[in-house]
């Protein structure tokens, strides 16, 4: 069937309409609503006063916001720098030819992601208990001088959070890396091997460039997920922000101000600040991966010229 010109221009919009309506209703409108709210001080939606940009000024001068920012940054760095190399390592192990029961191990490593965050929090809450927790019991068993009352959830909450997240999401990221590794051209690796390249050189110059697009995407996803961390510390610390606010994250602080203190305006200002930080990360990631692509293109072109 050939559609008339007019219908041809309307038809795609009709197909897109449900998506666009939903995005407009549930994404764009709240986004602008939050922008308006961020210029007000509120007690619920009914009681508001216009305060201009002072919410943003207060956020930037708020030591608690910076504590939350620092904690979130530590968590993000911990998650990205520990979780992703491990995920890549396991992906490479499983990608080795001749690995038996590959699907089984893939499932085993991936399965924690199928467990909800609430369960993860409950499990790790029990594991990290002071005297009765398995972690302290185990460490005390191995190293008798280990303090059985070691307060993981008080003094080292970020370590506990990073470990819990590592357990839950490492397999998830591993699946991405595994998919990327399976797309690395085998002939390139073989050619490098024949040329006498070491394992490290093959990894550095063949594997890594090939998986960089997926890798940078996984890094971006991990950063976004880490910056938005809320449920896990909330549940592990049972609604508190931990000793000396060591477990306070940016989204946790947003929740505290918006939904516990009722100041939706201040919470919106925090939300917008997070959004700006995340947008900056995304732009940076695009720029970096763009530059890498460009460099690769230049190299390819140079090699082509040489030939």
């Amino acid at each position, binding site marked *: 069937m050939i559609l008339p010109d007019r219908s041809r221009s309307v038809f795609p919009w009709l197909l897109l309409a449900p998506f666009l309506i939903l995005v407009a209703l549930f994404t764009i409108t709240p986004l602008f609503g939050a922008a308006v709210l961020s210029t007000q*001080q509120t007690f619920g*939606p009914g009681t508001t006063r216009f305060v201009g940009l002072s919410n943003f000024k207060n956020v930037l001068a708020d030591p*608690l916001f910076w504590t939350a920012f620092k904690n979130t940054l530590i968590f993000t760095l911990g998650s990205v720098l520990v979780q992703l190399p491990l995920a890549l390592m396991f992906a490479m192990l499983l990608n080795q030819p001749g690995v038996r029961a590959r699907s089984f191990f893939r499932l085993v490593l991936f399965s924690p992601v199928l467990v909800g965050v609430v369960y993860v929090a409950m499990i790790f809450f029990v594991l990290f208990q002071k005297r009765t927790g398995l972690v302290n019991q185990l460490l005390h068993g191995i190293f008798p001088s280990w303090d059985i009352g070691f307060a993981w959830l008080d003094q080292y909450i970020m370590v506990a959070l990073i470990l819990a997240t590592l357990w839950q999401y490492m397999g998830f990221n591993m699946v991405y890396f595994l998919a990327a590794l399976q797309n690395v051209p085998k002939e390139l690796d073989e050619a490098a091997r024949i040329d006498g390249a070491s394992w490290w050189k093959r990894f550095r110059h063949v594997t890594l460039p090939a998986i960089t697009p997926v890798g940078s995407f996984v890094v971006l996803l991990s950063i976004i997920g880490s910056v938005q961390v809320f449920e896990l510390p909330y549940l592990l610390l049972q609604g508190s922000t931990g000793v000396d606010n060591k477990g306070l994250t940016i989204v946790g602080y947003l929740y505290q101000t918006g939904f516990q203190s009722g100041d939706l305006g201040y919470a919106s200002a925090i939300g917008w600040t997070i959004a700006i930080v995340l947008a900056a990360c995304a732009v940076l990631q695009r720029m970096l991966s763009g530059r890498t692509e460009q460099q690769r293109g230049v190299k390819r072109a140079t090699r082509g010229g040489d030939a």
Partner: protein
Amino acid sequence: MAVVTGLIAMVTPETKREGASMWTFARMHAEMYGPELEAWNQQQTDPSRRVNLSLIGVQAMEQRMMSAFLAGLPSADLIEAERRNAARAFAGPLESVGFLDLTPYIERDGLMNKVNKASFLPWSKDGRIFGLPHDVHPMMMAYRADIVEAAGIDVNEIETWDDFERVMRLLLYKPDGTRRTDRYLLNMWETQIDLIEAVLLQAGGGVIDASGVPVIDSEVNARTISRIAMWTSGPEPIAAEVSFWDATGHQLMRDGFVIATFAPDWMCNYWRKEVPQLAGKMKLMPMPAWEKGGRRTSVWGGTMLGIPKTAQDPEKLWEIAKHLYLSRELAHELYTKSDIVTPVREFWSDDIYDQPDPFFMGQPKGRMYINLAPDVPDRFSSPFGAIALARTQGAVSQLCAYARDVKPQREEDLLPKAREFLAAAQRDAMRHVNRNVFFAARDSSEQSSDAAAEVTR
């Protein structure tokens, strides 16, 4: 999905039960009110005077209550709220409090003289009262009498915290003089903000003054948190953490890991149900004072019954509220079923409170709590209460970390740091006060302090 469920919700007719609806968050309360409300409902010829009780989880209730209040929508006709939940309703300007101002009703019925005055304060804002108090919640110390008495210790020698440490200290050591690692004198830890607040209040401090402004950096608070840091984190700690709410904590209680623990009246019932193995092993004593002749009690927790502004026929609801909270029968039931002492002072002389309690080795527990009830310290509601408490807890944690590092010999060694940490906490809390335009507007009218004093009077 959202569109579909929204449409279904829109077209589904609302099912409204006849009579008033009431929410409570505590199973114990629901069990107590159930038969009472059934009897009340049977007596009512007018179906609109009946009450339908719903038991709702504390957080779910808070969310539903606050959503309704903030949006100006109807919720239940009567809401029984715990102190922390209710405090959220008082966080905004006076006109946006979702509960009905009960002050005229309370004054008309002469309840100010009938009910313990301090019990009104947590439910008051700018001198207006928004809730009928359910309790007083005086606090005592519960101690392992089996262990203490076997060691030949006489708790009557204890009047102050200094006495407590001196008299009880021998329980920390084995016969050969070495320090026990499985025993502490006190159940207290640096993140338990309810206990920290209770101890500060007992000492004459606190984090919020009568006008609702944070007063974290007082000298009495500095001295008190220095002592807390010595207890929990000094070179010879006497306090350790035993969670009240989980099986691990219950096991440690049974093991006698801590000798004494803070015990508001409601906690007695909790132990009775959750750790029955402690029956006949524990006794109660007034809290040690901070100085000779000082206050021997404090307060923890609290519940109120409020009528949302959107409720129909407040007069009728007020009658139901009075029946539930102020009748002698229910006051007695409150005590027998939940160990909670009524705030209605004229019932305090009733014999029921003199009955010996086998759980506490035959002590007349009710009378002991009632003797302390008039001394329960004042607690003021404030939009900054939660912030002030959180910052204070942060200061306590910082001081405890400092104490672990420097291993001070005396409490006085910690005082300069305590002052410094509390001052920083105060500055931070005041930033919230100063940026709050609603509070600034209220403050400029200079009503708050006088009004709070009015309720206290």
